[in-house]
């Protein structure tokens, strides 16, 4: 049993507070006779055989609501034509109900299999009891228990009530299927909500509706914690449709903690009205003045100057192997370059929002688009000083997460406002609010220096990185300069150094945190090294990976970085893209990159054509990924990989700028997010390897950026080292190029 699975299983058993209890059978599970039988916490069987399976995790488009119940359905041999799926309640019985970090598959695959196997075991036992036979002689198929010797069968519907009464089975005696016998997993399954989505059914957080619903905006300064100096509440109160307006002092989480991850909320003015447009319009007369002084100096240009200075001096050593200084000194050729990537905004299409309804018992009920349902509940309870039982969270479909919905800030705000107003409130952030109050992808500035020996081998790789910090000692949330697995390991010696710029700007996790920027840096630089060595970029990487394969497969066992797996996907993508044979017209080029993140190994080739005015168009991308032994839902896996590629295109062209702690007021027109005409053909292939299946939300994103940047270099000779990859920068790089 893999290390991660065992830990998760133990956590689940621990949560159920007792030994010998099975995953998915909490102490207070109720068995109901009659129309519905709850067999454990996840499966409800109707007497007519219909099966409802609960999805424990939120869905923000990555397919968790479809996948997790499918795994249960597979192991319990449910009849797939009789399935309905619902979100589970937000309750301790379901453990931590969060999605992110591409963890849904690796952390839930085995536990959900055990849930399904447990339900099957109880149904089999119920049949065995009724027939008075040994359960070992019974089989299951398509929603029925079969006794081959006796020539009889009983449907799950007929057995459900009995099964629900049986004690949870012994987890150590559970029999799981051999994956070669899977009937559901490994095949395409469309999203369970798709039929509703094409009809416009109101299933998102923003669509929540309850009687007597009021609508709110919450006006804050973008400078975190900025206190209100003055505001014209009377003028707002006089606006049509406004029902409540009040200022809130906020609650500081203390000790450098972030709102959204710790109890607390920002100071602001709540405007509540009978529809959202009236609430949002009323802010025009609010004339709020804030003490924004804490934001002074927290500006994009100031940070760039600080980073430049910090990169000129040694930083704090974070990791190293071998003596990189000696190796550099002894090298034949040295290559040095500075790279940077800016702050980014998430811009999930559904703006932050939450609907909150005060309950009769002094509690509150939330309807939330969130990646962190458990946390939304606990942070709300702690912020309001309520016992957990008085806070109910209903998971709603999220219109995009991308890491933004890992913060429960909007949920807590809505609860505070609704409880203070004493009415149900739908808090919706305008798009300007959503961009101004993001937890941004942090910036990074890096100085890279490598040494090559006479044969063109990279003998030294020194990376000095600067990023932002809240506490002055460690990188801020979502920030980092630590060398992810391959780039340093591929060199004979390496060192990563870190320096920090203090910031008050809130940062967070953006799809493939740290990797989404560092991959651009390291895989562009490795491309530069290949060219410096006069070597083919694919062959150059493969040679270095193979040279270090032995040492790089750390003794950590399953889950530790395995450089051979990276080499394999790189080799495969070179083959599939026709890398060696490429014979492209002038102005078109191919670039390659490989990267390991979130347990996934990905290599990508991009084919780019330079267009008018130094702009660029990606014609095709080849993606090869290794995420273990089985792609559980191929049609969704392809969507995740393609979506990662498209998002990478957006990351290449976007940035957020700051002046004195505030973003320049902006909306979607200010961001070069990828649109349909820009989309390349995307070829996606997964290599199945003998490893437990891992996630796909993120690992296909990091290699896209350097693959495209390297292709632009191949097509135009322009090496751009600072994102966004604008025509202006390409023009400037072209002007600098040496033959």
């Amino acid at each position: 049993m893999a290390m991660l699975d065992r830990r998760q299983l133990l956590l689940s058993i621990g949560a159920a507070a007792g030994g010998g209890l099975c995953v998915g059978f909490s102490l207070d599970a109720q068995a109901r006779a009659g129309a519905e039988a709850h067999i454990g916490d996840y499966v409800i069987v109707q007497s007519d055989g219909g099966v409802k399976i609960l999805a424990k995790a939120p869905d923000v488009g990555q397919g968790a609501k479809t996948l997790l119940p499918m795994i249960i359905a597979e192991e319990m041999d449910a009849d797939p034509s009789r399935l309905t799926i619902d979100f589970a309640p937000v309750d301790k019985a379901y453990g931590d109900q969060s999605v992110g970090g591409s963890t849904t598959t690796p952390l839930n695959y085995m536990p959900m299999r055990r849930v399904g196997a447990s339900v099957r075991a109880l149904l089999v036992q119920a049949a065995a009891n009724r027939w008075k036979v040994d359960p070992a002689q019974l089989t299951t198929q398509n929603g029925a228990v079969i006794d081959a010797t006796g020539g009889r069968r009983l449907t799950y519907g007929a057995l459900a009530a009995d099964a629900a009464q049986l004690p949870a089975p012994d987890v150590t005696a559970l029999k799981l299927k051999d994956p070669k016998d899977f009937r559901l997993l490994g095949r395409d399954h469309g999203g369970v909500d798709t039929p509703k989505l094409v009809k416009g059914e109101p299933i998102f957080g923003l669509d929540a509706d309850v009687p007597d619903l009021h609508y709110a905006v919450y006006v804050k300064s973008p400078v975190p914690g900025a206190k209100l100096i003055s505001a014209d509440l009377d003028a707002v109160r006089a606006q049509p449709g406004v029902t409540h307006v009040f200022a809130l002092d906020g609650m500081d989480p203390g000790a450098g903690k972030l709102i959204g991850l710790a109890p607390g909320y920002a100071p602001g003015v709540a405007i509540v009205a009978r529809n959202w447009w009236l609430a949002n319009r009323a802010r025009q007369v609010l004339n709020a003045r804030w003490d924004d002084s804490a934001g002074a100096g927290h500006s994009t240009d100031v940070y760039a100057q600080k980073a430049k200075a910090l990169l000129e001096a040694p930083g704090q050593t974070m990791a190293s192997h071998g003596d990189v200084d000696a190796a550099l000194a002894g090298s034949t050729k040295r290559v040095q370059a500075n790279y940077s990537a800016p702050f980014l905004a998430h811009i999930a299409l559904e703006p932050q929002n939450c609907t909150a309804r005060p309950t009769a018992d002094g509690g509150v009920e939330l309807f939330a688009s969130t990646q962190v349902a458990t946390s939304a509940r606990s942070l709300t309870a702690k912020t309001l000083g309520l016992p957990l039982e008085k806070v109910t969270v209903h998971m709603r479909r999220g219109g995009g997460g991308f890491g933004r919905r890992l913060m429960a800030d909007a949920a807590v705000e809505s609860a505070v406002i609704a409880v203070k107003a004493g009415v149900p409130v739908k808090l919706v952030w305008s798009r300007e609010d959503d961009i101004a109050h993001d937890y941004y992808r942090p910036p990074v500035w890096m100085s890279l220096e490598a040494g090559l020996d006479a044969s063109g081998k990279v003998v030294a790789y020194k990376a000095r990185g600067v990023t932002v910090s809240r506490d002055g000692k460690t990188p801020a949330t979502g920030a980092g300069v630590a060398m992810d697995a391959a780039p340093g390991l591929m060199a004979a010696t390496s060192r990563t150094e870190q320096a920090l710029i203090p910031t008050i700007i809130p940062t967070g996790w953006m799809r493939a945190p740290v990797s989404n920027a560092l991959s651009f840096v390291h895989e562009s630089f490795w491309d530069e090294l290949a060219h410096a060595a006069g070597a083919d970029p694919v062959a150059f990487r493969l040679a270095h990976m193979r040279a270090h394969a032995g040492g790089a497969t750390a003794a950590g066992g399953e889950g530790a970085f395995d450089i051979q797996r990276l080499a394999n996907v790189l080799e495969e993508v070179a083959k599939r893209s026709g890398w060696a044979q490429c014979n492209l017209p002038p102005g078109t080029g191919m670039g390659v990159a490989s990267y390991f993140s979130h347990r996934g190994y990905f290599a990508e080739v991009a084919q780019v054509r330079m267009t008018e005015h130094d702009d660029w168009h990606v014609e095709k991308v080849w993606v090869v990924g290794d995420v273990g032994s089985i792609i559980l839902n191929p049609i969704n896996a392809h969507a995740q990989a393609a979506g990662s590629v498209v998002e990478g295109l957006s990351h290449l062209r976007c940035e957020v700028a700051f002046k004195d702690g505030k973003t320049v007021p902006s909306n979607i027109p200010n961001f070069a997010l990828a649109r349909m005409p820009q989309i390349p053909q995307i070829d996606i292939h997964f290599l199945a390897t003998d490893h437990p299946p891992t996630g796909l939300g993120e690992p296909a994103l990091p290699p896209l950026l350097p693959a495209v940047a390297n292709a632009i270099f191949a097509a135009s000779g322009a090496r751009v080292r600072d994102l966004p990859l604008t025509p202006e920068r390409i023009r400037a790089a072209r002007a600098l190029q040496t033959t």
Partner: protein
Amino acid sequence: MTIALKINGKTVSVDAPPEMPLLWVLRDEMHLHGTKFGCGVGACGACTVHLDGAVARACLTTVGQVGSREVTTIEALHEHPHGEALQAAWVAHDVPQCGYCQAGQLMAAAALLQKNPKPTVADIEHNMVGNLCRCGCYERIKAAIGQAAGVEA
């Protein structure tokens, strides 16, 4: 102010100031939540509806501007000549990831097929450029429109 509107084939009276965007009248006053809010400035297309069959951004169209034109929203797409074919194609290609933009995508696609039943790929891209999909489902949106139209896309 009471304003009469023709929405999805029915005449309704709404109490709304004429400068109120149709988007918020649909969502908050009529509780038709299919039409989505993404930006409020007409840049993302999530609020796409039809006015007399043509694409309109409901966040930029005030109820006063609607006049006697027929408003069609996603809730009535199945009645559109190309609606069911598009919805079936969307399901067949498993188009949505989060799905938040998809009502707007479908409405834009329906209007396109109504005026151009056999669009080229370039026609599709040109007409759909105003509909942002943050999750990046564009390949499948194109393929589904192609399937509904009976063309290669």
